[in-house]
């Protein structure tokens, strides 16, 4: 049975990827960070008790800041594929915790590459790179050959991780690949990311729990896809004969304002009556426009996004309406405690 190790399994992409790999028959190991309040809401539905002999999903304690724990994990699990999705992943927050972001998001990647090298395992490595690398873009649209211009501590840390991944591929022959993913959203997006903040805000307004929604820059333009499509692209990159770097994107760009229009309209609301601008949410340095060209991935991997922008918006609004409805009517799923081994 093929074994995969996923860092960041409790995040949006980690949960979709775990579902995909389990469906493909993998044994999946998820790395979780110690925490007083376990945040496993996104994987509760696929997690079975570790005592169950049928279980193919296991959670193990580890930390991207702790090289010895990563080395130990590789030696005991001996994974065939490692997907490094763990990070301090919020751009705005990275301005508040720059040092920590560099540690986890930048050095974390290096620690895994070192552990692979040290263990001598013949294992493939996927690094979650980000379209934020393009930052203050030097060309439109952005593709694999476009130079980077990172504009946040998050993006700088991701730039380090990107280059060190390429470096280990070239220096040591590691099967190491970068997926440069443009924004990808879903109902499992973190609640402080703008898309989810909007759809959650709509649900709250719809049920009379709130009236206002505070946002930052409405003019930012992004290339938004559906996370479920993107994790498939990650897997495809790892099945190639040779490791390489690929952009995944829809090839369309939309402003936050357009997202608002579509989402509020779908819910039968007028966003201009509810949305207020709070300068606290502006980034010290903003990224104005991201638009990806994923021709390489489409040609070489046969990858293609399935969910369109309007479909994505509707999916997210529907999911948040359902979530709030269940909460208001007290039929929300009870949360089961999940334990790591």
């Amino acid at each position, binding site marked *: 049975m093929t074994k995969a190790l996923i860092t960041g399994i409790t995040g949006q992409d980690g949960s979709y990827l775990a579902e995909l790999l389990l469906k493909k028959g993998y044994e999946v190991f998820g790395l979780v960070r110690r925490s*007083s*309040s376990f945040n496993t809401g996104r994987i509760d539905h696929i997690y079975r008790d570790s005592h169950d002999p049928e279980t193919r999903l296991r959670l193990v304690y580890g930390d991207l800041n*702790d090289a010895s724990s990563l080395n*130990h994990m590789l030696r005991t699990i001996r994974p065939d594929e490692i997907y490094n999705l763990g990070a301090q992943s919020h751009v705005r927050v990275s301005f*508040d915790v720059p040092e920590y972001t560099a540690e986890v998001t930048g050095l974390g990647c290096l620690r895994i590459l070192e552990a692979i090298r040290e263990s001598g395992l013949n294992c493939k490595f996927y690094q979650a790179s980000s379209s934020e690398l393009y930052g203050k873009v030097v060309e439109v649209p952005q593709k694999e050959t476009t130079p980077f211009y990172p504009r946040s501590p998050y993006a700088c840390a991701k730039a380090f991780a990107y280059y060190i991944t390429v470096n280990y591929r070239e220096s040591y022959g590691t099967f190491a690949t970068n997926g440069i993913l443009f924004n990808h959203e879903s109902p499992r997006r973190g*609640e*402080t990311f703008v898309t989810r903040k909007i759809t959650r805000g709509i649900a709250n307004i719809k049920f009379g729990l709130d009236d206002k929604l505070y946002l930052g820059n409405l003019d930012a333009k992004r290339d938004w896809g559906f996370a479920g499509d993107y994790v498939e692209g990650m897997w495809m990159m790892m099945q190639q004969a040779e490791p390489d770097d690929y952009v995944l994107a829809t090839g369309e760009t939309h402003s936050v304002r357009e997202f608002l229009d579509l989402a509020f309209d779908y819910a039968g609301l007028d966003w201009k009556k509810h949305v207020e601008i709070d300068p606290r949410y502006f980034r010290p340095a903003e990224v104005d426009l991201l638009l990806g060209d994923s021709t390489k991935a489409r040609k070489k991997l046969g990858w293609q996004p399935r969910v369109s922008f309007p479909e994505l918006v509707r999916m997210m609004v529907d999911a948040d309406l359902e979530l709030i409805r269940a909460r208001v009517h007290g039929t929300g799923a009870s949360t089961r405690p999940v334990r790591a081994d």
Partner: protein
Amino acid sequence: MPTAVICGVTGQDGAYLSELLLSKGYQVIGTSRDAEATRASNLRRIGVADRVPIVSTTLTDFRSVMQLLTKYKPDELYNLAGQSSVSLSFEQPVETLESIGQGTITLLEAIRFIGRPMRLYNAGSAECFGDSAEPCTEETPFRPRSPYAVAKATAHWALANYREAYGLHACTGILFNHESPLRSPRFVTRKIVAAACRIASGSKEKLKLGNIDVERDWGWAPEYVDAMWRILQHPVPKDYVIATGVTVSLRDFIQAAFGHVGLNWHDHVENNPELIRPSEIRRGHANPQLARELLGWQAKVHVEQVVTRMIEAERTAEKVLEN
């Protein structure tokens, strides 16, 4: 209204301390590494989540700590953050040392740098004592026997050094084990209680434990957070041992827990050598006399009641889930 900042607010002690300080009229700000991601389940469970804003703070990130202290200007700062499991510290020694040792030093540096008077309570640990022949007091030398204890000893001495070198009003509470229903299931007491309740409700599982001959002083966490607060109210900053003064074996704890739900533990507990730690403290015992004399603090809840209360809470939680 005095302001208190609690670093590591989402843990067991953070929740009870929030509740206590709120009841005393404090404005309470809590920190967690990722305020957005935490479910703050402990704060929710005791019903104070709405009154404790949580700020993302990483203690090993200097800017993050400076920002916290300059923005909220706390009168009292309680550092309860860091990796808190002895057994996990053998798996993650580096992260343990960073989050506890480096985290505390960063905090001390930031307080010194800002130069504003504020009182700091730091969560020390009786694990620092290791195996000691005599009941431990504030004068007992440390002999740490795990990466966790080494990290706590580092933080302890760093704090004492800053107190002496720069006159900070900083104190360490050397707390012996203190339990409650908010204990994470990773900890042995909660693990035992949860398993006993599940087995009593029909589960066929076996409870696998490591060394059950170890002896500890187990108290009731809500009382211990009161000691933390008292430590900071004393005009002279000092370190204190906080414990019940009564030591029993883990075997006794198991027997009490299973007995409480009408079971004989011998039928349900199995030994698992994998759970035995590379180096273990055989016996922890304490003499908490100084806290009694100077702070007027004394534990009222002893281990039997700790077991009873944890069992009752577990059963109530099971019923809530069933319904």
